[in-house]
């Protein structure tokens, strides 16, 4: 579903991604983990071209993302993206946040798009917040609206860039539950996360990154019990034994 081949990216002399190769099959969930500055967020942002790459190729569902001839808007409507800081549109209600792209990009009739938006919001436990503005919602609620907004485009892939990092601890669970529920539907997902328990529980593969490189790719049980790389061991020591 997602095939990343020999991707390189640098800011000036600073190499942020070097020789990245990764293939994510359909219906699989991959977690990107690693110390900050490892390039996890940069990598996930290149998958829907929020970041440019200087070298290499990324293909999503047969479409080359960074090809000049690719209709990037078309591609992005098939790739849902959830941000760390939610980035909801503050001047629009939850319903409008979710239904705008279907209405204005996919040209879905307004009634139909709004009915679907209500359905999505309700399934994420926000049935009574449909007409609320983002400023009236808690962080956890906002992030669930953001998930609904991404799902409203019926994406083939969902990308999560540290979806719980900006949340108060008591709200992390509700967002993780929403992602869990999505995982059970067979959605292809890539999640940048610091929630190790969560990554271990729902992911098919753990991608451990450091210094702009992929150091290790392994199933969670293997990675968390017998990491192969020294960087991986060192990282797990720090995050699991604090």
């Amino acid at each position, binding site marked *: 579903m997602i095939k990343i081949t020999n991707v390189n990216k640098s800011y000036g002399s600073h190499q942020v991604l070097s020789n990245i190769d990764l293939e994510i099959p359909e219906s699989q969930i991959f977690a990107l983990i690693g110390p900050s500055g490892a390039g996890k967020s940069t990598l996930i942002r290149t998958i*829907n071209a*929020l970041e440019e790459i200087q070298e290499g190729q990324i293909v999503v569902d047969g479409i080359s993302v960074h090809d000049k001839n690719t209709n990037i*808007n*078309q591609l*992005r*409507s098939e*790739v*849902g*993206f959830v*941000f760390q*800081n939610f*980035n*909801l*549109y*503050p*001047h629009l209600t939850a319903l409008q946040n979710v239904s*705008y*792209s279907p209405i*204005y*990009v*996919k040209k879905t009739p307004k009634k139909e798009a709004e009915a679907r938006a209500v359905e999505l919001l309700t399934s994420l436990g926000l049935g009574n917040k449909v007409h609320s*503005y983002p*400023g*009236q919602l808690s962080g956890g609620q906002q992030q669930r609206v*953001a998930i609904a*907004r*991404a799902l409203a*485009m019926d994406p083939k892939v969902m990308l999560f860039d540290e979806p719980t990092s900006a949340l108060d601890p008591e709200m992390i669970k509700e967002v993780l539950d929403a992602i869990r529920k999505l995982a059970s539907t067979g959605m292809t997902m890539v999640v940048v996360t610091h929630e190790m328990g969560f990554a271990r529980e729902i992911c098919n593969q753990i991608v451990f990154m450091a210094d702009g490189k992929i150091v290790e790719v392994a199933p969670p049980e293997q990675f968390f019990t017998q990491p192969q790389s020294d960087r991986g061991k060192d990282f797990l020591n720090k995050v699991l034994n604090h």
Partner: protein
Amino acid sequence: MDYSMDWSVIPQNMESILEGLWLTLQISALALLISIPIGIFAGLCRVSRNRFVSFLATSYIEIIRGVPLLVLLLWIYFVLNKFMHLGSYWSAILGLAFFSGSFIAEIVRAGIESVPRGQMEAARSAGMSYATAMRLIILPQAFRKVLPPMASQFIILIKDSSLVSIISVADLTLVGKNIVGNTFRSLEVWSFIAILYFLMTFIISQLIRFLEKKYKVAE
């Protein structure tokens, strides 16, 4: 000071005062209506990633903003008029509109830049084109933020319209000058005219305040 006031000069000249007032309203309103699209367009060009487009907009803003309005009006009336026949009425309106437009452009640019980058990213991630994201997501948020500086700009425009009297547009100020010239009642006439200008700008600022309240969002 031995001055006996005589306010009868006002009702006696009410007809020409109202004509001047009407002309000032026309010129201000038309200049305002033209300056808004100019300002939004130039502001959008200013933030464009196309360097040439951005350069053109910046040049317009810097040049027009850097010339005194009085000189700009004189230049349009005495120089530009030789090439295209605008007449004093349209010279005044266009001079005011382009002058005000350059300030509005900077207000619009600041408004757009005050919207967090994540908003554009979120909109583009959700499949919107740059133009659609601007129209539905960025500009509506920028609009709310720029209302207060816009109000100041509109007030300045109305007050600046008094300068058009220099190119013989018989606006409220020129009418006042003429009445004072005939009657020597400067205290009464200029006080009354000051009140009229104040009323116009006050109505504008109340109107914008109403808009601010109406579009206020919980953040």
